[in-house]
């Protein structure tokens, strides 16, 4: 997680133009050690279930998130970031689906409305060793009624020459799942999973106005990777969602930053990934950062995502479908999504106000090459947020 303050567009241009002369150590300017405290309120609201025939409450997930964060210098070369998050989640989620007329799936949603709280705290410390070489260590803990996750990470950047920087790192997390009403619904009572990630990236200053970064990420998960709250219809019966206990994923990321003028920059990101469950995915994201008179900044953007389904995904299975694994979780099905987002920032002296919204729509129709299986649970949502930061001197 890069938690240092972004340099202004003018400074980015100066730094890029000076990089050839004085090397990348000039980029140490990106680090702001003046403390900042901020508060954010985020509302995530999934559209009511309307696409396919459904049984149960049509009110889907709604999450209200409050976040408090602090960043500031510790000593002369370290920057500390601490985030505390509290979420309240409610609504129902897709449970399983049944074959309907013409074999079209009927989505069954969880009967009882879920209401849960999640609290999380994360901290990271970045040490600037000089010469644009930085090391960041991070730790986080998240807890809710039925889920506890602990994660640790370490990353390091080294400038190879004036225009090229190598970054690499790794992280691991340990999650404990203790489903509610386990006895009543025959769910697993206690399960664990571990995730290990490693990544490497190269960042090139192409010229005085643009930077290209390319990276590779490997993720390996082992343990209980099924969703204990979901079922799959196999023939006439509902069986627990059952997935392999290992998953390996490889991803390739490319980021491009172009300072178009002193007041405008273009950001483009892409991610291509494939995993051992037979899923391939593509993400394309483009944003425009425009600074306006009066300390305003407006950031419109669009994102496209497509994934195909896991080998063991189907909205429902025939009694004779011989497989060790079954899942009807919409997140493992094929779909594509399009999202548009718009963020606004305004600075008033030491205060900075941010607000934004995102509209996200997912459907099998948007999947690259079309999805081969129906995905009745595909979600659409609206997200709005507002926040206020205070920058100390």
């Amino acid at each position, binding site marked *: 997680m890069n938690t240092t303050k972004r340099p202004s567009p003018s400074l980015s241009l100066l730094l890029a133009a000076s990089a050839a*002369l004085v090397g990348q*150590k000039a980029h140490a300017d990106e680090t702001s050690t003046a403390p900042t405290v901020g508060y954010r309120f985020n509302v995530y609201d999934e559209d009511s279930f309307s696409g396919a025939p459904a049984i149960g409450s049509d009110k889907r997930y709604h999450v209200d998130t409050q976040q408090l964060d602090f960043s500031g210098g510790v000593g002369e070369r370290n920057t500390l970031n601490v985030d505390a998050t509290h979420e309240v989640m409610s609504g129902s989620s897709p449970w399983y689906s049944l074959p309907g007329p013409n074999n079209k799936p009927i989505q069954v949603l969880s009967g009882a409305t879920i209401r849960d709280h999640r609290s999380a705290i994360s901290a990271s410390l970045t040490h600037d060793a000089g010469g644009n070489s930085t090391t960041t260590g991070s730790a986080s803990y998240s807890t809710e009624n039925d889920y506890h996750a602990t994660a640790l990470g370490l990353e390091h950047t080294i400038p190879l020459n004036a225009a090229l920087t190598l970054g690499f790192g790794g992280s691991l997390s340990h999650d404990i799942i203790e489903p509610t009403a386990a006895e009543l619904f025959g769910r697993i009572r206690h399960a664990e999973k571990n995730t290990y990630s490693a990544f490497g990236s190269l960042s090139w200053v192409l010229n005085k106005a643009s930077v290209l970064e390319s990276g590779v990420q490997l993720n390996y998960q082992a343990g209980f990777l099924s969703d204990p709250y979901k079922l799959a219809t196999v023939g006439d019966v509902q069986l627990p969602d059952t997935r392999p206990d290992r998953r390996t994923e490889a991803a390739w990321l490319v980021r491009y930053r172009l300072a178009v003028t002193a007041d405008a920059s273009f950001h483009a990101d892409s991610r291509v990934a494939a995993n051992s469950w037979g899923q391939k995915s593509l993400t394309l994201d483009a944003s425009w950062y425009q600074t306006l008179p009066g300390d305003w900044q407006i950031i419109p953007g669009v994102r496209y995502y497509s994934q195909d389904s896991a080998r063991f995904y189907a909205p429902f299975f025939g009694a004779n479908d011989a497989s060790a694994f079954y899942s009807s979780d919409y997140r493992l099905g094929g779909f594509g999504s399009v999202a548009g987002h718009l963020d606004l920032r305004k600075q008033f002296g030491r205060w900075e106000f941010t607000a934004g919204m995102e509209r996200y729509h997912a459907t099998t129709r948007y999947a690259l090459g079309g999805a081969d299986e129906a995905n009745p649970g595909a979600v659409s949502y609206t997200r709005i947020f507002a926040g206020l930061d205070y920058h100390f001197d």
Partner: protein
Amino acid sequence: MRFEFSTMGCPCALHVEDVSDDVAQRALAVTLAEVDRLDRKYSHYRDDSLLATLQRSTDAIDVDDETANLFDFAAELHRQSDGLFDITAGKLTRLWDGRKPAQAEIDAALRVTGWHRIEWRRPTLRVTTRHMHLDFGGLVKEYAADRCAELCREAGVGSGVVDLGGDLALIGPHANGEAWIVGIKAPRAEGKAAASIALPRGGLATSGDYERALVIDGKRYSHIVDPRTGWPIESFASVSVVAGSCLVAGSASTLAMLLGIERGGEWLRELGLPHLCIDGDGNVSGDIKI
């Protein structure tokens, strides 16, 4: 250990500590050699400099990488300052050196000034107007400070500061890890510091009329000249900037001076680098606290 010397028309110093005499002497030797090399190459007061050679000819000339990097950087500064930062304005700067020129002289100098009178396509430069004077003022001394700091580190110095006429580049913090406390020159008060600040890394540069200003009939004329009008800029008495390198600090302080009190101050705030501006009445602004 402190060594004093003079180059590029300024009093300079090299501060090093926690090193043997041999290493200190080697650091001083590489520093003197480097400032001499850059002065010979880029001085606009010497007839044998590379700049003098470039401006004497109207032929296309391929330049070395270092010079190309400086031209690229100068082109970026020219763009960001809407043409105020202009390395082709050497003739104008010279005109105002120690005297107030006649308007006819200013007009003549303006005819050999302007970025549009050179063609720069890395690595090829062509000066299309005869009698132009290229001037890397605001860049070379600051770049030299960064280069010297780098060479001192390579010579084995871990702790020290290079001071080229008040433009400072950090070699490394004090041996105990603490930052060097450095003085920002007070405008118009010879030898006095306006502020002392900790310089944990990078560089500090000050641009202003405190050193080379011209006073005629009680009016001060700064040595920073607007290349569009040919007249000195009415701006801050001094602008100091702290950045990751002395070069970036120096170009930021020079640009702020050129942009004037209102736009320069706004541009510095947007830039986000620590800075201190002092106007002609001694009013202080910026986020470096005195």
